[in-house]
């Protein structure tokens, strides 16, 4: 069960149960929808971009624990970041969950997002972890819809 406990850590289970920034953001000036047709995970990202910085963001949606916890922690991590910083973090996160980034030996800005490293042992779940990030990226770049297929 060690890989399992690595995947379903307490922090992830907590964010699944009580997702942060889980509401519609009235002040949003960018939104995007994400959908994973394989498993049905879906969400909307609401993003308030001011002077090229993410002043606020939130999400609504439904899906598995990995998806929901990832979306919740993504909103916390990206809030207050510049567009460029948010994109760079997305890149690092993507490399983390696909096993391309060695979080212990390579300098990175991931902070507590490194708990998603366990996802790399479950290749079919990578899309669950990255859907909200792809959708955030789409909202930043004015794409309205994202599909992981």
């Amino acid at each position, binding site marked *: 069960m060690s890989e*399992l406990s690595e995947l379903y850590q307490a922090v992830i289970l907590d964010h699944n149960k009580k997702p942060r920034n889980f509401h519609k953001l009235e002040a949003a000036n960018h939104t995007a929808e994400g959908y994973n047709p394989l498993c049905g995970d879906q969400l909307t990202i609401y993003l308030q971009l001011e002077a090229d910085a993410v002043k606020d963001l939130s999400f609504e949606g439904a899906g598995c624990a990995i998806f929901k916890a990832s979306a919740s922690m993504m909103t916390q991590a990206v809030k207050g970041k510049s567009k460029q910083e948010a994109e760079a973090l997305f890149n690092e996160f993507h490399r983390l969950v696909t096993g391309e980034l060695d979080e212990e030996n390579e300098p990175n800005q991931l902070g507590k997002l490194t708990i998603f490293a366990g996802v790399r042992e479950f290749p079919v779940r990578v899309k669950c972890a990255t859907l909200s990030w792809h959708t955030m990226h789409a909202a930043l770049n004015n794409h309205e819809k994202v599909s992981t297929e």
Partner: protein
Amino acid sequence: MATTIEQLVPIKPKAPDVWDVERIRKDFPVLSQMVHGNRLVYLDNAASSQVPQMVIERGSQYLKHEHSNIHRGVHYLSMKATNAYEGAREKVKRFINASDVKECIFVRGATEGINLVMHGYGRKFIGAGDEVIISAMEHHANIIPWQMLCEEKNAKLRVIPMNDAGELLLDEYDALLNEKTKLVAVAHVSNALGTVNPIKEMIERAHKYGVPVLIDGAQWAPHMPIDVQDLDCDFYAFSGHKMFAPTGSGVIYGKAALLGKMNPFQGGGDMIKSVTFEKTTYADLPNKFEAGTPAISSQIGLGAAIDYLNIIGREKAAAYEHELLRYATERLSAIEGVRIIGTAREKLGVLSFVIDDIHPHDIGTILDQEGIAVRAGHHCAQPVMRRLNIPATARASFAFYNTREEVDALARTVEKVIEIFG
């Protein structure tokens, strides 16, 4: 060339007197492996079932000693291959009690069978303003072809609704049938819910309007005997890989009179009598519908799977499975927080469930770590999920080689899932 029934294959499992499941399991090499340090518990049979040694050996014997192209029989090997392939068709005929072997068309699986009827029958005989009836619990394979047809022909797709238990509302079905109805296409058993539909009754009612009926039998064929003459269905589709044969095998049965007047499905070699650039005359049944070189070894494997089912005894297998499904339903229902999806009075092979506040994919991942294979998702039946207002389910589906101990392992691990998620 004479078509003879192929020789019996050398490996013959002995028919057990009582259901000796451990003896049966030995026939399936895949079942003895370990997954993530645990013995494999394979409960994804409704997606694809495992293949017994006898079927593996038959395919291997074909590839080692008989492989050649069929129906071009001037040489020895081609005759061997043709005999084996046509021998499998004979077995299919007896398996479904068709009145004639030419009514059994080999296809890649139930999906291709349904598409064959859509193209051959639907596109020829269904037009603007006509109606096609399907049900609320169809697999996408029995929805999308008809949607495509209706869009192309400006016909209308009508849907028989179901209740919360997952049973079709037959009064609503009666109300949908009318003189505009040109085809009814309905599942024998729902892949997402396990509901057994009263198809004999439904066929009878459609026939009162002279409407042909296609049955998607993919989830029935692995479990129970089929008698197409008794059902009086016009088409019956099933897949080999869900009934212990290799992928790429399957059958669409059709009444000869209907198949005869239909358009061919694909054009190509083997489906013709004569070809000139001006005109082609099509072959007789069943070749008219089998263009190109088919999946010869897979269909021979399907024949061997039928032999296997006959040897082990279909009725005994069905009785055992029935009891296993009952036991699994009882075990999972007893766990607090688990809700069974699909509670029809008559069910077969499938146990779909959800757990409060835990997504089926998380259930599936945790079960997998214990070596338990289930399907998590919408089961290619998104309208069913929408109707029942759930995003997805976890689905355990059974075969006669599953055991009570495996059901216990499933129940134990489901309890563990609930524990992990607190």
